[in-house]
Each structure stands twice: as C-alpha cells, then as structure tokens.
C-alpha cells in the first residue's frame, strides 16, 4: 500500500499542483490586483452565465412561435401594450418577442458561434502556421499560397459557399440546427489565416535562434520543440488575435446577418437582433436596437479587456 500510493499521488498531483501553483500565485494575484480585469471578468461571467441559463432565466421562450402574439409587437419597455396590456421589462420587438428573453437566447447562440469559430480558426491556424514555419520549403509555399487563396475570398462569399453546399447536403429536418455549424465553419474558415501568418512568421524567426538550434542538435523531436519552445513564444500575438477574434466572430455573425445569411430569423442571435433593430433607428422603437447592442458591446468589450489582462499576466517578461 505504502509503496503504490506515492506513485499514484505523484502522477495525479504533479500536474495538478503545477496548475494549482499557476492559478494561485501568478494569475490569481494579478487578477486580484487589476480592477479592470475583475470588472471585465464579472461582466463576462454574468453574460455567459445568463446566456447558458437562458431557458431557466428567460420569462418567455422567444423561439417558440406558438407563444408569440404579434399584437405585442413594439411594446415599449415597462409600459403595457395598448392592445394586449402585456408588460415587458425591456419591451417587445417587431414580432412581439420579449426583448429580454430574446437577448438571453440570442447571446447564447452568439457566444456559442464565437467560441467555436475561434477554437476552429485557432487550431487550424496554429497547426498550419507551425508546420509552414518549421518545415519551410515547398510545404510552406503551398500553405501560404492556400492562405492567399483563402484571404482572397471575402468571408461573405465563403459563408455563401458553405451555406450553398450545406443546402445541398443537409436534409431539411436538420437545417435549422445545422445553420449554426455552417456559420461556425464559415467564420472560422475566414479567420484562420491570421493565426497561421503570425505563427509562421514567429516560427521562422525563433527557428534560427540558438536555443532552438541547440535543441535540434541534441535531437529533440520537432513536435516537442514546436510545442515546448516555439508555441509559448508565439502565444502573445496569438492571444491578441484570439481575444479580438472572439468578439470579431460574434460581430462577423452579425455582419453576415446584415448581408442576408445566418441563423433563421425565427431564432435570432444577438447580431441578428441588432440587424433587425437597426431598421427601427429612425422610427422611435429604440429599445429593439439599444438593448441588444449594449449587451453585445458589454460582452465584446469585457472579453477583450479580459484578453488584454490575460496576455500581460501570462507573459513572464512583463511582470
């Protein structure tokens, strides 16, 4: 017993303790001493939690058309509707949907699309960037030319392509659920090049440095060198792109909605809500535009600020 226990302990605790040390000593301290980071973190957590818990928090389900009453349309915030007498905290939109509930459900979709798109773009971009920068030669040329082709296409066209292809392949019954995945791929695919270019550039620079040359001479496996030595060195710029990238992905979804592609209007995202609300800028129904915009602004801003802080905190040389 006494002989086996320590082995189990070390294998489990060692990584945990490293994590623990990281969180406890450096990051958490930095977080505690940065009011901006704490505020941004708080706002992010609130919005993300509210979005995740939308089905339980929201007073209505705006995605269930059977629950809607068109006559509730354009009900101002906190005022009873002139026909139905219904009252909504943040008012109702042009279809009689409760704006508050719609924002919660919309944020859920937007956040999901944003996180997944960034994850997709980052994984693809970093992998290809490392390979291109490390291997160089024809593989580098090929990948970078692919990147050129990719960049030549405005994201709207990539989205149109993916939507078009998806229309052909996906059976009608699944289309509604697939629309989100199509968006994720469309946005992620139009974003990976940035990561790849930066990682590649940095890899090329790092590769010629002495410590990497030394590691190669010792015979370290290239993957190990890339992950252990080069990747940490490029994480600074990658994080800058990724933090802006998350907000950007959420906004890209809004832009695609503006151009007429995106989630179905019966299940609006935050971006779709803004696109719809934008039409009422001059007509006096300010709440349809204002509340979703403020939510998006708060979310994107706090995620970005959090990213700023995280970058500084993660970089040992900046401490």
């Amino acid at each position, binding site marked *: 017993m006494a002989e086996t226990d320590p082995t189990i302990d070390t294998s489990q605790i060692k990584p945990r303790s490293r994590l623990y040390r990281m969180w406890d000593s450096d990051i958490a301290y930095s977080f505690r001493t940065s009011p901006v980071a704490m505020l941004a973190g708080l706002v992010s957590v609130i919005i993300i939690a509210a979005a995740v818990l939308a089905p339980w928090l929201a007073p209505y389900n705006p995605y269930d*058309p059977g629950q809607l009453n*068109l006559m509730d349309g354009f009900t101002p915030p906190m005022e009873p509707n002139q026909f139905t007498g219904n009252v909504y905290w943040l008012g109702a939109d*042009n279809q009689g949907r409760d704006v508050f509930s719609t924002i919660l459900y919309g944020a859920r979709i937007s956040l999901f699309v944003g996180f997944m798109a960034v994850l997709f773009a980052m994984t693809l971009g970093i992998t290809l960037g490392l390979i291109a920068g490390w291997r160089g030669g024809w593989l580098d040329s090929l990948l970078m030319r692919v990147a050129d082709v990719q960049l030549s296409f405005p994201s709207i066209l990539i989205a149109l392509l993916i939507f078009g292809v998806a229309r052909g392949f996906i059976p009608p019954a699944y*289309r509604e659920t697939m629309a989100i995945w199509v968006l994720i791929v469309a946005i992620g695919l139009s974003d990976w090049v940035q990561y790849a270019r930066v990682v590649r550039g940095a890899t090329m620079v790092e590769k010629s440095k002495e410590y990497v040359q030394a590691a190669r001479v010792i015979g370290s496996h290239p993957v190990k060198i890339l992950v252990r030595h080069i990747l940490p060195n490029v994480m600074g710029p990658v994080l800058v792109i990724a933090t802006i990238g998350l907000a950007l992905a959420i906004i890209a979804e809004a832009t695609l909605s503006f151009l007429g592609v995106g989630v*179905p209007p019966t299940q609006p995202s935050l971006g779709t809500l803004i696109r719809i609300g934008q*039409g009422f800028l*001059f*007509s006096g129904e300010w709440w349809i535009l204002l509340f979703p915009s403020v939510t998006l602004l708060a979310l994107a801003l706090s995620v970005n600020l959090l990213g700023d802080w995280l970058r500084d905190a993660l970089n040992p040389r900046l401490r």
Partner: protein
Amino acid sequence: MSFMTKTGTLRTALMAGVATAAMAFTSVPTDAETLRWARVGDALTLDPHSQNEGPTHTLNHHIYETLVGRAVDGTLTPRLATDWYIHDEDDTVWVFEIREGVTFHEGQELTAHDVVFSLDRARTPPSGMAALHAAVEEVTAVDDYTVHVRLAGPAPLYVQNLTNTFVMSREWAEEHGTETAPNFAAGEEAYSVRNTNGTGPYMLVEREAEERTVLRVFEGHWDDAPQVTEIIYTPISEAATRVSALLSGEVDIVQDVPVQDIARLEQTDGVSVVRGPENRNIFFSYDMTSETLASTNVDDNPFAHPEIREAMALALDRDAIRQVVMRGESQPSAAPLPPFVNGWTEEMHAYDAPDIERASELVSGIYPNGFSVDLHCPNDRYLNDEAICQALVGMLGRIGMNVNLVSQTRSLHFPLIENWETDFYLLGWGVPTFDSQYVFDFLVHTREGAYGAFNGTRYSNAELDAMIQSLATETDLEARDATIAAIWDQVMEDRIFLNVHNQMLAYAMRDGINLDVHPENQPRMTSVTFD
C-alpha cells in the same frame, strides 16, 4: 446657401452656421427646378426594350415615351398615340393613330415607321418585353401616322400591354447597330445601354450606373413643359441611409420609404409623405396537388386537404399583420388582386376574422399531433417580406402547424417556385395589364407552354384552363367579365392562394413638392409641382 432653410430640419442657429459651412459643398445647389430623387435600386439599363423591370421602366419613362400612358388612377392616357381602337372590319387588328409633330432628342421626326420598328424590336428576343407581345403577328405602317398591329386572334385588351413598350428612332438604332435588344451572350455592350435618343420630356446628360444619373428637360418636347427642369437620380440601397439623406436635406424625394419610418417622416418638419395602393398583392401559396411533400413530417400532403387550407385561412390574422408588421400601410384582402384590376369584387376582398379554435380543430381532426413543413420566403423583394413570413409562422404555430422558415435572397427564392422545389412559399404579384387574365395565365393555368410559369401550386383544372384561354380572344367584354368572375369563384373556393394584403406605396419628399403615388410605382417627375 438656401438649402438649410428649405429643409426645415434645422436645429439651432449656431449649428446651422457650422452645418452650412460643411454642407455647402456636399449638396448640389437646389434652385426650384432641380429635383434630387433617390430610390432603392438603379435602372438596369437605358435600353428601352431589354428589361421588363420596374425601376428600369420608371427611369426610361422620362427619356422615352410609350404609345399609351398609365395615369395614377390606372386608366390609359394618350401619349405618342393620340387614339387607338380595334379595326372596324377585322377584330384581330388594333389601329394606332400616331401623334404628329413629335421629334426625338437628336432631331429626327417621329413617324409610324419608328413605331413599327420599335414594336418589332420589342417583340423579338432577346427583348425582355417579348412575352407581352407574343400574340402579335405583324406590325405595319399604313401611312406616316397610322400603325396596324395584327394579332393571332381577337385581343380586346392588347393595348393594356403597351404601357411600358417604348418607341425609339429607327434611324438612330440602325446608325448605332442596335436594331435588336442587347444580347447578353454576344459579349459586347450595346450602344443603347448607356446612350439614349427618345422623344421623352428629359434628355440624358450624365450617367454612372448605380451612382448618379442626370436628366435635363428637352426643350423640343410636344407636351407642356414640366416644372422640374433637371433630375438628379441617385440609388441608395440601404433603407437607413436613404431616409437619412432625406432628413439631412441631401435629396428631395425618396421613393422607397420603409413602412416603419413613415410616421417619423410625417412628423418631421419640412418633410411630407404621400401614400397609395400599389398594384401588387402579397400572398402565400402551397403545393396542393402532389401526393407527398418533401419538407413535411407526415405521409401525405397536408395542403391537399381543403380543411387544412381553410384552417390556415382562419389562423391568418391579416389585421394584426397590417397593424404591427406593416404599420397600417397595407390593404388586407382575401383576394390576390388589387382593387383597381378588372375582375375585382367586394365579395372576393372580404376576409373572415381569425378563429384559432376552429382552425386548431380542423388541423387536429386530420393530424392529431399537428405537422411540420418548410416555408420559403424572400428577404429582399417585398415590403417586410421576411417579417410577414415570421408572423405567419407564429400564427400557424398556434394551430398545431410547426413551420420552419427559410428566408433567403430573391435569386435563391424565385427559382424554387419556378422549378417546383418549394411546398409552401410567399409570392407577390403585380398586374401590369390591370386585368385578371394576367393572374390566371401565370398563376392558375396548368403549367404548360407560355402558361403557368409561376403556378407553384401544381394546380391543374382542365375546365378552368379552357375558360382562361377563352379570355384572350373573347371580344364581348360582358361575357368575358362573366367568365372572369366564374374563374375567380372556383379559385377562391379551392383556396389556391392565402392572400395577405395589397401592398401600399409611400413617397417621402421635401415640403413644397407635390407628387402622387403611381400604382405601378413608376412616378413621373413631369407631374411634380412646386408650391
């Protein structure tokens, strides 16, 4: 600089000083006779016969002229033809007496030969107008000012097809090699796309497609000189930008006003809004014929059941759509026909109040668990098209129909109807001939040959088809109207269309400008007057 005081949207004197300094250069000076006109899209071409499309015709009506015109009340008016009638001895021939003393912008004299040339050009592919002249067999000039149009059979309403067929100079067209309408496949730009020589009240001065078109009054025009002497036409595709341009005084007239902005514009000092019914109905339709549907979760075709069609009619709350989606700017109706079109009746127009309970019973009587189906909708074609579809999805949701909305751009939407790839769709239909036959030909008749191109219902009724075909050649107008009424009875009974409303038009303009709404959304700046 007088533009600020004219718009009247002025804030404070201080601001005005700054604003005038900045804006002095950004707006074209407006003396009383220049009119800055904005709408959503540009004319596609200036060729008079290439495209049968509203904005193209609207602009071309200022440069070119037709034999007969359409007044704002929908009646025909003399234009290049002073008189028109069916030939006394041969009821297959229409006679047109051509106006004398008319000259083209480049000085050529208008004669019957130009009219013959133009009608021939318009009815020959690749002209976009050919379908309207499909029944024409021969066009001849009897003398310099009389034209005979011979048709395949008696065609009492043929003249109604002529309101957008422009007359151009034969000499000019031959000189510039544009004897036929431009051919897309030829790979060369036709001279007539960017150059014009019409008889109309305005001459083309400058054109940058989708940016700016400038027209100046034609001194040699046969009619009274219009008050507007210069037109600056600028398409602005974004609704918010278009309204802003009017509010900031950068344009004088906005033709396509979003319904939600009408109230605000009316309340704005210095801006007024005119509205009127458009010759266009918005309705839903469905495949009521096929055995099964691609997009439904039940084994048969729900729309084939008259009860389901009735239930949908009972679930549709037209007044709510008018009130909320259209902001009061529509004419709800059960008939897919604008009131000023021949064949329209009060009875067709009347619609039942919604009865959700009864509708739910009808649905659950056949499908106890309800059913689901896809609804296809354009999102950039009609006023608030997507919002109308969304509203219907909610209404049908309450009677046990789970409708999955697919809204997309027009170039994806309309082929679905054309290729029978949709089970349930939204369509808008205008009636340029102002006669019911046009609706029947395209939407009701079995799809074959020239008939039924937009019949997405797959509806096919041999008896009705025969009646529809008889309309084209029936010269006894009373008997013809009776046939139209009989066809409508059947169409309404079978519930081929789930009509929502007749669309309304609104034009917003600077105070002091007077312009009436044109039912075909083709306003003429010649009719503009200034206070």
